[in-house]
């Protein structure tokens, strides 16, 4: 039986990855021959116009969609193989907490789904790390949007996956909360050296959190810029005020504006 816990951070390779939705009558090409390698233990941000196919790429990596052409390999394995040994976890834009479970129950659910033994200590430790002490027994409806996202991130981490897929995880919260989450949460997965792929609409968030920013064109998505982020970790809010940070966000924004007229609308 494969080891389910403490997955080592894998390298993720996408080769000739294409995805077309819809039937023969009205096909919609979401991705066109994407070749990408995501380095083990690093955080990569994907930015691009709305509907360009970033989330589709993430879903292909998660094994939630099958590619029309090409393949994804995660540390040499297929996405389904990685899923079956709980080697990856995904966070969604809307937190996707089960409303009938408490914060603690939602976090513990990931261990159940991953077929890992119960570990209340690990759950409680994560509750503390994401700053939810005192809220563990509250249901999602009793939590703010930011608290729900903290629970969602804790749920992702509790099975200690090697690969973390974040699909606009802070997209549904206000700007102040988002800034707080950007400061508080990334340290959790950075400390574990998890391979992380982050889809975001925010250029500044991408530059703040990632080691590398990939800019996609309008649909069908193809890579139009691949920009390294050279800042040391840990990064704090002071980084946003540095000129180098602003230069880099300008560079990403310029690439993004070349991607299409709507690309910067979300900024």
């Amino acid at each position: 039986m494969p080891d389910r816990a403490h997955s080592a951070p894998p390298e993720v390779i996408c080769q000739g990855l294409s995805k077309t939705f819809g039937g023969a009558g009205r096909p919609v090409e979401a991705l066109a021959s994407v070749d990408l390698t995501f380095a083990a233990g690093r955080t990569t941000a994907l930015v691009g116009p709305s509907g360009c196919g970033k989330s589709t790429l993430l879903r292909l990596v998660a094994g939630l969609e099958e590619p029309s052409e090409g393949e994804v390999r995660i540390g040499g394995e297929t996405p389904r193989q990685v899923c079956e040994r709980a080697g990856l976890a995904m966070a969604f834009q809307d937190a996707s907490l089960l409303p009938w479970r408490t914060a603690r129950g939602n976090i513990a659910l990931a261990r159940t789904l991953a077929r890992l033994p119960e570990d209340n200590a690990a759950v409680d430790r994560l509750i503390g790390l994401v700053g939810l002490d005192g809220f563990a027994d509250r249901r999602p409806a009793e939590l703010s949007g930011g608290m729900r996202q903290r629970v969602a991130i804790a749920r992702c981490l509790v099975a200690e996956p090697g690969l973390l897929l974040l699909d606009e995880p802070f997209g549904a919260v206000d700007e102040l909360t988002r800034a707080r989450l950007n400061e508080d949460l990334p340290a959790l997965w950075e400390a574990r050296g998890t391979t992380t792929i982050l889809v975001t609409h925010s250029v500044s968030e991408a530059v703040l959190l990632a080691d590398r920013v990939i800019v996609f064109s309008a649909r069908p998505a193809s890579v139009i810029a691949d920009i390294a982020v050279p800042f040391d970790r840990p990064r704090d809010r002071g980084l946003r005020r540095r000129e180098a940070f602003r230069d880099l966000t300008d560079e990403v924004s310029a690439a993004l504006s070349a991607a299409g007229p709507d690309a910067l609308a979300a900024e």
Partner: protein
Amino acid sequence: MGSRFLLTWTKPFPAALGAAFPGLALGVLLPLLLWEGLARATAGSFILAGPSEIVAHLWANFGLMSRALGITLHAAALGFLYGNLAAVVLAVICVLLPRAERMVSALALLCFCLPLVATGPILRVLYGTGTGPQVTLAALSVYYTTFLPLMVGLRAAPASWFDLVRTYGRGRLTELWRVRSRAALPYFIAGLQIAAPAAFLGALVGEFTGAERGMGVLVIRAMRSLDVPATWALATVASAVAMIAYAGLGWLGRRLTVAPPAMLLAPPPQAQAGGRWRGPVGAVVLGGAVTLVVLALWWGAMEGFGLNRFFAKRPGDVWHFLIAGEGTAANRAVLFAAFGQTLGFTVPGYFAGLALGAGLAAAIVVFPGLATSVLPVAVALRSVPIVTTAPLIVLALGRGATGTVTIVAVMIFFPTLVACLQGLRQTPGQVMDVFDSYAAGRWQRLIFAQIPAMLPAFFASARMAVPAAFLAATTAEWLATGTGIGSLMALTASTSGYDMLWSAIVLLSVTASLGYVAVGWVERAVLSVYASEQLAR
């Protein structure tokens, strides 16, 4: 009445009563006083028994009534259990085997459209004495009212919850156990709430078919002897049981669930899995496939259980009786003449019930003062089985067309009223804010915002009302008027004319199913303009 309906979740019944206490005094106590006064004024006319007479009758016959009630409740409870188990099994099959869903749903609908009036006597022959028919009819009355909301509930979860399960490499069983079953709980409870009075109705109809004991036997006896206080007392007890079951399950639902369902319990029919077969061609292919499967199941069940051909007719027997044998023209003439009479009661009653229900709902919105007095009473009356009110209406309006049309209309009216009120309340707050910002009048709000918002609930009610209308018409014909296909079925059952009885079953089931599908088509056409989000669900 209206126990066969699936509607939106209603405001908690006791809460509605509590919130509306001043209205309650007006809505309940005043009618009670009027009722008593009217009964005394019409004493001797064999129409109305007042509350005091009812209480006196119940007091004098407490032992008999309580024993009969216990027997009927026992059969209803067993039928409730079996019917809901069947609903759960069917729903789980549909979730685990999505390709089977359209076929399973179509078969379930067809079974739901079987006329209880005809299946009752056949089950009596099949089971002999005992509670078999009561339990079976109770089960048949409830499985569909639970199946539909359960299917909605099992799907009432965001796609990302299922993505979450799949990212851990888990499949449909885990989805079902960890996510769908819990997400479906509010819908399941809402379905059970509708099913409880329906089970009681089924058990009563089963007792009409020749049981020795039970509430149904007392109802028949009271009607035949024109015992007005007994008829009203039985109706009161049955109504109370239905309301208590409805309210009790509502209470249980609120204890168990986090939030009530926000969607329609009976959403519009739609092409789901196997999307290749959509549109008219798909409907014809599905209809043909369903027909073949039904014929095979019908024949297979009769042969498999070795049922006597004397009463357990096969498809070939019905074909021979209506199409291929001797004297088929005369058989068809008798059948269709009776069916025409029934349609003459059913169609006007159906549309009258819908129009009155929707109209009163709109009036309540325009004149909100009406709501506090009308709504709690309407929610309560919705759960009263038709067989308890039919005799009362017949007493009041006689055995002619007026009585039957009124029974059908009443059967449709209350569920439509409650559904439409719920629908009107679901008008989005932002939309109403826009109307507020222009200081729009109440009629403008009603016509441009609230009625369009009400349409999904109205059509869900209209669709479920089709089999309910046939049930009401045939029950009235059977119990009271002596005309139409309901009476023909009762007559042929008592004279062992099983060819005619089975032919009537086929005709009624097919007509009710086609009516349901036809309303569904109109619904889809209208909602595609006014509420496309309902079709996407």
